[in-house]
């Protein structure tokens, strides 16, 4: 219980920089505080997080901040189709800052709506896959025996196929649709979580606090959820962050191929696919701007994930 003064005077350096001797300091900081301090050490990652926050806020608020609702057919005017960026609408009341597509849709608004769909599908499928993978992974680690062999064998077999092939098989079987693409993305992702959860849990299960909890005759459920699970959070967070980016990219790719979201849903992949027909005639904006939006979204998530890996990786913190 040493180092009480730490609370009033937080260390200026990160746990990474302070090195090994700071085990006592680290213990009395809250994990969140330690995490924030370590995260702030990299400017690029902080910037990426800021960009990501702006994107998320803009996407969530898109019905209020978008210049038009691009999926409300009553506000679209065919006379405004394929206008170049910066041109005004036929009635002169509206400026298409990023141009318009063949249906007279404002590209900027379509991007905001599309990003919202991408985020919803990406995050939704990741959380669902996390829940399934975590349950199976922890079950495998805790139960051992046949259950473990079966679960891990299925996960291994699945991971030996590229994600796009698995998604393709499922979507070729079921056809496009929001629910179906989420199912496909969950099917692609769950094995990563199951594997990470199991391997982390196996390490944690060998530690003394679990032995202590067992000695107290706590129930298996309680040990799993109250003691084991919180200690599996850091590695799973990293996998989650990387998987959200991968899921968004895969969804856009599948939608681009016409296998993902139906044409009635706002989607960056579909926007890019529609615009690709006009690339040859020099009408670049229909494909390019949604692509840039997708790129910024994925790169910022990846940069955040990359830095999270450095911050949360206990192996790197020891040095």
């Amino acid at each position: 219980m040493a180092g009480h003064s730490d609370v009033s005077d937080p260390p200026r350096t990160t746990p990474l920089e302070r090195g090994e001797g700071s085990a006592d300091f680290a213990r009395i900081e809250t994990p969140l505080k330690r995490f924030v301090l370590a995260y702030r050490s990299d400017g690029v990652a902080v910037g990426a997080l800021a960009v990501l926050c702006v994107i998320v806020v803009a996407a969530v608020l898109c019905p209020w901040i978008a210049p038009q609702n691009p999926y409300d057919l009553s506000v679209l005017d065919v006379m405004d189709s394929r206008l170049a960026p910066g041109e005004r609408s036929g009635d002169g009341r509206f400026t298409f800052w990023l141009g318009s597509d063949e249906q007279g849709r404002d590209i900027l608004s379509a991007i905001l709506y599309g990003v919202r769909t991408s985020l919803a599908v990406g995050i939704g499928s990741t959380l669902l896959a996390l829940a399934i993978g975590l349950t199976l992974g922890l079950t495998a680690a805790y139960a051992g025996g046949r259950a473990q062999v079966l679960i891990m064998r299925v996960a291994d077999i699945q991971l030996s196929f590229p994600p796009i092939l698995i998604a393709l098989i499922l979507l070729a079987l079921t056809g496009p649709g929001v629910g179906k693409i989420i199912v496909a993305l969950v099917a692609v992702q769950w094995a990563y979580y199951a594997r990470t959860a199991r391997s982390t849990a196996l390490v944690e299960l060998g530690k003394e606090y679990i032995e202590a909890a067992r000695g107290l005759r706590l129930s298996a459920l309680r040990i799993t959820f109250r003691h084991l699970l919180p200690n599996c959070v850091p590695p799973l967070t990293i996998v989650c962050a990387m998987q959200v980016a991968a899921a968004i990219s895969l969804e856009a790719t599948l939608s681009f191929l016409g296998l993902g979201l139906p044409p009635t849903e706002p989607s960056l992949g579909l926007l890019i696919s529609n615009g690709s027909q006009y690339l040859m005639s020099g009408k670049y904006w229909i494909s390019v701007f949604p692509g840039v939006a997708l790129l910024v979204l994925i790169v910022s998530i990846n940069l955040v994930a990359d830095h999270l890996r450095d911050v949360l990786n206990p192996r790197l913190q020891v040095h």
Partner: protein
Amino acid sequence: MLRFVIGRIWQSLVVLFVMSLLVFVGIYAVGNPIDIFISPETTQAERAAAIAALGLDQPLWTQYGRFLRGALSGDLGRSFAYSTPATTLILERLPATLELAVSALVLSVAIGIPLGLWAALKKDHWVGRSIMGMSILGFSLPTFWVGLMFIMLFSVTLGWFPSSGRGETALVLGVPLSIVTADGLRHLVLPASNLALFNTALVIRLTRSGTLEALLQEYVKFARAKGLPRSRIIGVHVLKNILIPVLTVIALQFGALIAFAIVTETIYAWPGMGKLIIDSIRVLDRPVVVAYLMLTVTIFVLINLVVDLAYSVLDPRVRLSDLKG
């Protein structure tokens, strides 16, 4: 060892069987092909005859039985759209896909290994940092979008390379290839670079981390102490040691390249298996979809089996832990 081999082969067979069941039932339970392949103007009798000819009036399990027997003899049904055997249709397009995938593989190794080495040697220099930045970008850039941007830049604006098709092909050992003709090579450049993008980023990362690790090893210190020139230490001692893990991962990535060729082929209208499957899904040409999925899954199962067996020979711990589990 024998037990391990038999176990792995058995596992592969189970995977193939489950896949065949899943693919078949899924594909044949979705939509109604009768509406797509038989014109609404035909008479009732013509309709019935066409349904019987395609075997669509049989119960699903009978159709599956026929399909499984056919699959074992290499006959996966006839394409509804082309009315040629589905397997022939796919195998005709296999060389184009393989050519694309191999070109992309070679390209990613040829670019990725030197860049990865360079990034490791200049770790804290701006060169190393910008190479790593590029590799993060390579991971993040959606392949299909980069493909479109390549077309916009190199085909539309600069007019350097054509944007679609294989161009002129010439027969090499009876297989039509683009790479041997000047026109074909020009057609190959953009799709191969596009497909190589992700893999190049991967090779850069693997080579860099491998090199950084190798540079700390005793044998590098020893070579330095011996007074060997830096170029020889890097080019011979280090490179030799990092090449094995890098090449292993690259070989494993070959399957992923074939799968990802679906995207590239669709963008560049490259007449390979990937474009065929997307076109077939769009018109519900189910025998071709089934045949493609079965063929690809078989290829993957075989690759995985070979890799597993090779690993167990190289590293006995793999098969020991497997038996324990």
